[in-house]
């Protein structure tokens, strides 16, 4: 059994939160898209903006 190192003690969600924090431009664009028509949300209506956001987050996670 290995003892948990200090790096392992950081919860995965914290890595993820940091990565999302680096994508403010994409995140804002997605939020704006929702905001334009938030009374009538349908599945995938902001697909393009979301994929841009997700790509950015994935890139940031790998760094």
């Amino acid at each position, binding site marked *: 059994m290995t003892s948990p190192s200090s790096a392992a003690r950081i919860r995965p*969600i*914290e890595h*993820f*939160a940091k990565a*999302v*924090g680096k*994508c403010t431009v*994409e*995140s*804002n*664009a*997605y*939020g*704006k898209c*929702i*905001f334009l028509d*938030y009374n009538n*949300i*349908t*599945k*995938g*209506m*902001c697909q393009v903006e*979301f994929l841009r*956001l*997700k790509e950015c*987050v994935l890139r940031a996670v790998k760094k």
Partner: protein
Amino acid sequence: MPSRLRLFQRLYRGYATAAQGPLPAFQVFNRHTKLLQRERAARNTELSRTTDYLRDHVATDLAERLLLINRRFPRVLDLGAGSCNIARALIKPVGDSNERVSTRIEKLVAGESSPTLLHRDVEEPFNKEIEIERVVLDEESLPFDSDSFDAVVSAGSMHWINDLPRCLQEVNRVLKPDAPFVAAMFGGDTLYELRTSLQLAEQERMGGVSPRVSPLADTRDMGSLLDKAGFSLLTVDVDDVIIDFPDIFALMTDLQAMGEGNAVLGRKEGQISRDVLMAAEGIYRQLHGHTDNTLPATFRVIYMIGWKKGGNQPKPLERGSAQFSLKDLNELNKDKNKK
């Protein structure tokens, strides 16, 4: 074929009857899940203590209200005590005055369902300044004698109770006649920013929503619930506590560390998907975010005071016994002006 179907319908037609026996109890929350969440939160003592700020704030406000009642309380029950936030608030001087509510209390019975959370701060110095008896109990049924407490207090835990009407009846039962119930609970628009952001994100990503934030009691409901449970001289008021967080993850981490994770029955099990989380973060920021890049989270605290009936409590007069008509109030003023 149609006639046969009609015959079938005729044969099986009956009257709708009311369900036999007592009415089914309300089941909204999974109490076992809630217990596990609280236990888990309290086991990480340090993190748990850093998120006491909300309960401490509510407990301090509650202590102020208790100070206004000019009485001695030999035996007080703290319902849903958590880590005894109320006890800590009671020993502090209230506001500008030097008075401490704890001097009027002989014994505080702290009842809580999570043993780890209840005993988290047993070794802390505040335990020496007020006599605390810690009791592990289910907040939905109280293991105490009737008419045995001089006051019941509760801060920030009643929003997880399934059968609120019955719980209030229980509180009324254990109170002595003419004794107050002073409570604060989260309700109404609490966490509406988080609720709406997650709903919009799930709607757009998944095409449907799952309950992520608890349904909460409304301010208007509390008055009638207290009344139904047999309390009189009711006072209900609300206070919005708005806390700014750097991002949605900080908010959710703190909620988890408070033991306030989702425990709604019929929720989608497992964690929220990463897609929905990053979508919700963007929506939260766009819809509710401040210009300085922080995200506000609203906690609506409903404060209520109700008195058990009995003693020489003031009562409304008999209907029709008034000596003066309210219509004539103007006349009264005119008379005064003449003089």
